[in-house]
């Protein structure tokens, strides 16, 4: 079994490398590879000043590592998908599940095969933070990180299996997550009650300094009930933080115990494993078959679920552009799953928290308003990268889109309008809520009327900003379909990192180019408003209008250009080339 796994890993790696090298004959991949190499050189091997000491982590680092690990696990349980990280390829399914192997051997095979990428990830991660020097203490870090990654991957695998198993037994995704939330709440109560008792001491320690605070937190984390809850996490991160090999060896058994328990948990959960793996492999096989036949693969299939009521009914007659935008809004709405209720619940908790503050509510409102503004900004700047129900998703149905009796510009406009609508509404809602919250505050130097002006200016500029960022993302998908992630499959390799960097750099450059004329126009309009006697912050309103009109004009030109590009291009040929 071990020999077969090693042989498969070795040959697969060699052949994949050969194929990637062959791909470098295409100039864009060669450029991407060169940029990727430079990137790695800059990150790892560039000459730089050596840090003074070894920087051996203390208990503060351990506390931080525990908190980080706990956060990662909580996020996975709350928002993770039901797709197992141990997804089998169609070939693995065909050969392993039909071979005279037990289910456990199949699982062992998959686990063994997953170790090489995990080990390489550990090496690269440690190299990134060590300036390319691989000393004995760095080897400890590599081994420690490898243990953490292995345990995390098995934990993810179990979590995915548990989710799928519960779904198959009729528990809806929301109920399932509510159960997990209940467990997390119990854990949170244990953590909170433990911390509350220790809070005065912790506060005093943090007043002394972050180092003392973290040390005190480390001590608290290992006491009483909290110590029991935290022990598995602490056991897992301690080898990673060991100063030398001797200490590493003493800490290793506990970490191995945690990894071993995860392995047992994974094996025990494997009743559903085979079914899940085969199903996943079949889905993958269909996608691969579609790619090989020159067509785009069908979108990843999800488990059957009832449709949420649509956000507005689509009239049978009307603009096709609005129909495409409507379709994408429904995809965001119906695809948001449990995230939306969780975000709403967090919002309610925040409001309840502010209301419970009593005399100190002013500070709470200030924090809340600031958070809302930050969220609005994130919706505008980062939202277009997160919401991908536009061409980035629908290029998987490229042939269907191209068969519609629509001009390319109509398709592009409709596709982009979906996420733009969602993000604009979210940003507007946050801005309005922040404004509403600010009404309860006395802000010297920023009277209510000025806040109204700021709200209007921001509200006017938001959609134009979102349109530009979204169009840039869609342009990248249309221009470089092989470089942009479409659907769940992500290409790997040094050259792909370089290509992604190029894409990101290109996006930033395009944003800059788009905003320069708009900002100039806005500045001119603000100046004219000033000359015309418009007061202070109110000048921002005509400025925002100038900015929006300019960006809107640019967006129209971009849509027309992308439309022509959509009509002419053939991504299947691009990808097969």
């Amino acid at each position, binding site marked *: 079994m071990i020999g077969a796994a090693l042989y498969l890993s070795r040959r697969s790696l060699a052949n994949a490398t050969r194929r990637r090298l062959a791909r470098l004959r295409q100039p864009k991949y060669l450029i991407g590879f060169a940029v990727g190499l430079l990137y790695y050189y800059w990150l790892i091997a560039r000459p730089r000043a050596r840090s003074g000491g070894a920087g051996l982590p203390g208990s503060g680092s351990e506390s931080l590592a525990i908190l980080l690990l706990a956060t990662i696990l909580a996020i996975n349980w709350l928002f993770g998908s039901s797709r197992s990280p141990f997804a089998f390829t169609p070939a693995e399914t065909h050969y392993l599940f039909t071979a005279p192997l037990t289910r456990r051997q199949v699982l062992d095979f998959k686990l063994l095969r997953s170790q090489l990428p995990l080990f390489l990830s550990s090496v690269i991660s440690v190299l990134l933070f060590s300036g390319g020097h691989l000393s004995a203490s760095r080897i400890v870090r590599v081994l420690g990180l490898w243990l953490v990654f292995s345990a995390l991957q098995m934990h993810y695998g179990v979590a995915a299996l548990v989710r799928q198993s519960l779904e198959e037994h009729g528990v809806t995704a929301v109920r399932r997550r509510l159960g997990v939330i209940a467990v997390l709440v119990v854990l949170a109560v244990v953590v909170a009650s433990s911390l509350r008792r220790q809070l005065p001491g912790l506060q005093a320690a943090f007043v002394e300094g972050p180092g003392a605070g973290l040390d005190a937190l480390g001590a608290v984390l290992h006491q009483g009930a909290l110590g029991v809850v935290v022990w598995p996490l602490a056991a897992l991160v301690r080898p990673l933080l060991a100063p030398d090999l001797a200490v590493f060896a003493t800490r290793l058994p506990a970490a191995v115990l945690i990894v071993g328990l995860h392995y047992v948990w994974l094996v025990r959960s494997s009743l559903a494993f085979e079914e899940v793996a085969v199903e996943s492999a079949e889905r993958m096989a269909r996608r691969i078959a579609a790619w090989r036949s020159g067509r785009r693969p069908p*979108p990843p299939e999800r488990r059957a*679920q009832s449709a949420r009521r649509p956000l507005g009914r*689509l009239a*049978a007659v009307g603009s*096709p552009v609005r129909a495409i935008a409507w379709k994408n809004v429904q*995809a965001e709405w119906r*695809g948001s799953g449990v995230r939306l209720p969780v975000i709403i619940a967090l919002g309610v908790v925040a409001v309840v928290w502010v209301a419970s503050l009593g005399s100190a509510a002013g500070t709470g409102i200030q924090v809340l308003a600031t958070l809302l503004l930050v969220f609005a900004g994130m919706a505008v700047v980062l939202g277009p990268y997160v919401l991908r129900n536009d061409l980035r998703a629908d290029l998987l149905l490229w042939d269907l889109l191209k*068969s519609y009796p*629509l001009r390319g510009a109509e398709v592009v406009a409709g596709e982009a309008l979906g996420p733009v609508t969602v993000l604009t509404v979210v940003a507007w809602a946050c801005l309005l809520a922040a404004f509403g919250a600010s009404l309860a505050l006395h802000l010297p130097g920023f009277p209510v009327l000025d806040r109204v002006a700021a709200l209007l200016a921001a509200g006017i500029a938001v959609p134009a900003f979102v349109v530009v960022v979204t169009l840039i993302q869609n342009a990248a998908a249309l221009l470089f379909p092989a470089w942009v992630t479409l659907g769940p499959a992500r290409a790997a390799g040094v050259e792909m990192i370089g290509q992604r960097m190029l894409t990101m750099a290109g996006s930033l450059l395009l944003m800059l180019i788009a905003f320069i004329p708009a900002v100039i126009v806005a500045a001119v309009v603000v100046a004219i408003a000033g000359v015309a006697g418009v007061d202070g912050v109110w000048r921002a309103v005509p400025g925002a209008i100038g900015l929006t009109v300019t960006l809107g004009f640019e967006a129209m030109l971009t849509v027309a250009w992308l439309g022509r590009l959509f009509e002419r291009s053939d991504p299947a*040929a691009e990808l097969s080339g």
Partner: protein
Amino acid sequence: MIAVRGLTKLYGSLVAVEDLSFEVAPGEVLGLVGPNGAGKTTTLRSLVGIVQPTRGSISIGGRDLDRDPVGAKRQLAFMPDEPRLFDYLTVEEHLRFTGRLYDVRDAEARIPALLRELELAEKAGALPDELSRGMKQKLAIACGLLHEPKSLLFDEPLTGLDPAGMRRMKQTIVERARQGAAVILSSHLLHLVEEVCTRVLVIHRGRLVAIGTIAEIVGSRPDLQGRSLEEVFLALTGT
């Protein structure tokens, strides 16, 4: 009417289709057959406007696909072998959406009738995930038929269907041709071609090898007299 003149598609140095010319009249069902890699899919994808031909012209209902793609596509429906559906639209919403794209003015009235005809009425509010393979296929057909296209293209239409589904699919193809649609059917299933198609176009390595009724094709090759369609096909393509 579908008219193809000198259709050529090159992928770099690879010739996918070379100088292909043929016509499909209203009421005709043309079977497009050929071995793997012969150029069938490329031909179909060119006819739908998914792939831009390197050379040649395609006319759908008298409208040139290159000069008036929107007008040409309005008269066309393409049924790929794998139903292409949106994850987050229900059955009924797919039809409404398609109605908007094809500007079907009476879609509101047509949708319930089409849902009943294709036995999808009970699943009107279901997402694609909740549908069986056959139902997904039916939905794709419903979307294709909503605008009453004058030209229909089917790529391996029986893939994944059960016997009852296959029968319904064949009936749909024949019925649409009877109503005056020009139909092209690409398939490896020679018995389907023999049963449904009025003419056959044999393509091999991107080139037209033979076109006509089965009798005409066999008639042009005395050595193939009395042979089955499968033997004729193998002899024509040298496979």
